[in-house]
C-alpha cells in the first residue's frame, strides 16, 4: 500500500556563517520517513537535531538538497518547485507558539476562515463553518469576533488547530504543538487531537523533545540520530537504547520528589 507520505534519501544542509559564507552545515543525511494514512507518528530528538527541518520539507516549504518527498506516491513539488493546491490543502501544520503563528490584527474568525476563503462560500455559510470548527476543538463560537491575540495561549493554540483542520487535511504536522501549554491544557489538547484523529482519519507527525508526551499518543516513533530518523519500536521498553534516546530518557525529570 502506498504510504500517505514518504521521504527517501533526504539530504539537506544550511549555510553557516554570513550571507556570503560557503560553509554548509549538514542537517539531514540520507533521511527516510514513512507515515501511513490515519497514523500518528512521533519524531523525537533534542534541539538542533533536524526535526523541524524534516517538518519544513514535509510541508514543501523548501526543497531538499537531494532525495524525494512523496505525498500519496507523487512528488510533493513539481519540476518547477510548486506544490499542487490539493496537496497544499492536504498537509497542514500547528507550531509551538500560537502567538507567532497568527496575526495580531485578525479576529479569531479571520484566522480560521483564511484557508477556507478560496472556497468562496457566502458569508453566513462561512461563519457557520468556522463556528463548527471552533466547536470541534472545544472553543465557544461566541469568541469568534474577538481579536485572536486576546485569547489565552491554550485557546489560541486550539484556534490554530481549528485552522489546520479547516481544509480537511490528510496529514497535520504538530511541531512542538503542546509544549508551551500548561499541564492541564496540554492534556486537554492531546486528548482533543487524539479524538479528532479517530473521527476524521487524519494522520499526524508529532514532533517533540519531550518523550513523556509520546506515551499513549503516538503509534510509531522515530528518533533523530546522526542526522536521520531511526525508528524505535518501544521508546519506554527495556534493553539497550540508542544513545540519543538514552539522553532523552535521562533528561525526563522525576515524577515525584526524592524520598527524604
Amino acid at each position, binding site marked *: 500500500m502506498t504510504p500517505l507520505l514518504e521521504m527517501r534519501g533526504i539530504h539537506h544542509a544550511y549555510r553557516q556563517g554570513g550571507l556570503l559564507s560557503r560553509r554548509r552545515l549538514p542537517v539531514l543525511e540520507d533521511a527516510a520517513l514513512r507515515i501511513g494514512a490515519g497514523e500518528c507518528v512521533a519524531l523525537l530528538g*533534542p*534541539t*538542533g537535531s533536524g526535526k523541524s527541518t524534516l517538518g519544513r520539507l514535509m510541508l514543501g516549504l523548501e526543497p531538499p538538497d537531494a532525495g524525494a518527498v512523496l505525498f500519496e506516491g507523487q512528488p510533493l513539488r513539481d519540476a518547477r518547485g510548486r506544490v499542487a493546491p490539493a496537496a497544499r490543502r492536504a498537509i497542514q501544520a500547528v507550531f509551538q507558539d500560537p502567538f507567532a503563528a497568527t496575526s495580531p490584527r485578525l479576529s479569531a474568525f479571520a484566522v480560521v476562515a483564511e484557508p477556507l476563503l478560496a472556497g468562496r462560500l457566502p458569508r453566513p455559510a462561512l461563519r457557520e463553518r468556522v463556528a463548527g470548527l471552533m466547536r470541534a476543538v472545544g472553543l465557544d463560537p461566541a469568541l469568534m469576533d474577538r481579536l485572536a491575540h486576546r485569547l*489565552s*495561549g*491554550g485557546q489560541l493554540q486550539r484556534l490554530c488547530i481549528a485552522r489546520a483542520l479547516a481544509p480537511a487535511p490528510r496529514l497535520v504536522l504538530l511541531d512542538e504543538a503542546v509544549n*508551551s501549554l*500548561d*499541564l*492541564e*491544557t*496540554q*492534556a486537554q489538547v492531546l486528548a482533543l487531537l487524539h479524538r479528532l484523529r479517530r473521527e476524521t482519519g487524519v494522520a499526524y507527525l508529532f514532533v517533540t*523533545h*519531550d*518523550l*513523556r*508526551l509520546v*506515551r*499513549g499518543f503516538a503509534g510509531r516513533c522515530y528518533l533523530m540520530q546522526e542526522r536521520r530518523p531511526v525508528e524505535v519500536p518501544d521508546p519506554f521498553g527495556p534493553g539497550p537504547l540508542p544513545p540519543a534516546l538514552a*539522553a*532523552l530518557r*535521562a*533528561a*525526563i*525529570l*522525576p*515524577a*515525584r*520528589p526524592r*524520598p*527524604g
Partner: protein
Amino acid sequence: MSAGLALEGLRLEAGGVALVDGVSLALRRGEVLGLVGTSGGGKSLTTLALLGLLPRGVRRVAGVLRLDGAVLDAAAQAALRGRRIGFVQQAPRGGFNPLVTLGRHFRETLACDGLRGAAATARAEALLREVGFDAPARLLPLYPGQLSGGMLQRAMLALALARAPDFLLADEPTTDLDLIVQAQILSLLEGLVARRRLGLLLVTHDLSVVARLADRVAVMLGGRLVEEQEVRGFFDAPRHPHSRALLAAHLALYGEALPA
C-alpha cells in the same frame, strides 16, 4: 519575626477587578519554594509584586512585603531589586538588549556596585564560569543573538547573580528550553541554592520541575493561594481539588494514576 522574604495579604487590582487576593508567601534562604498553578492564576503577577515591577494598570491595594521582619516600602523595595533580589524570566531573549554585547550587559550591572574595567571583566568571567561556561572570555564580545536559548538562560542567571542577591525569583526559567538543557539549568540552580544559600522562588506549571527542585509547594488558582505544603506531602496527599487535578495531569504524563 521570621527571617527571609515574606509577602502578607497581597491584593492586586486592575480596573477595580481583583487579580490576586489574599496571597501570603514566605521565602527563606537556602530553600526552594515552587509556585504552581494553571496559566492565568496570578503566579507571575505575584512574582512581579515581590519585585515592585507591576505592569501598568495593575495596582497593589493591599499587602505588606517584609525582609527579615522589616516592612519594605516602595523605595526600599526598589533599592533591593537586583541587589538582594534577583529575577530570571521565562524567555531569556526578551531580557537582553539584542544590540549590546553580553560583556556590556555585565559591565552595566556590575557598575552599580562600583566595579569597572578589569575588575568588572574578571567578575563577569567568574560569574559565567559559575553557571557552567568553560571559556567565558570568548562569550563577552558576543551579542545575545549569537547564543542559543539555553546559553542565554545561563547567562541571564549569571547576570541575576552578579550582585550576589539573597533571593532569586525565577518565572518559568526552563519552560522554553528542551528537556536536556532544562535538566542542566535545574542542576545549576540546585547547586547555587546550596552554595550561596539562595532563597529561590520557582514559578512553574510543570510539576516535574517542582519534584526535582522544590522544598515546599504553593498552588495558585484564580488569584488566590489554595494550598501550601511541604513537597513530599503535596505529592503524596494534595489537599485542594485544583492541586489534585494538576497532579493527576502531571502523573498521567508518566502513565500513572493519582493515588487514591
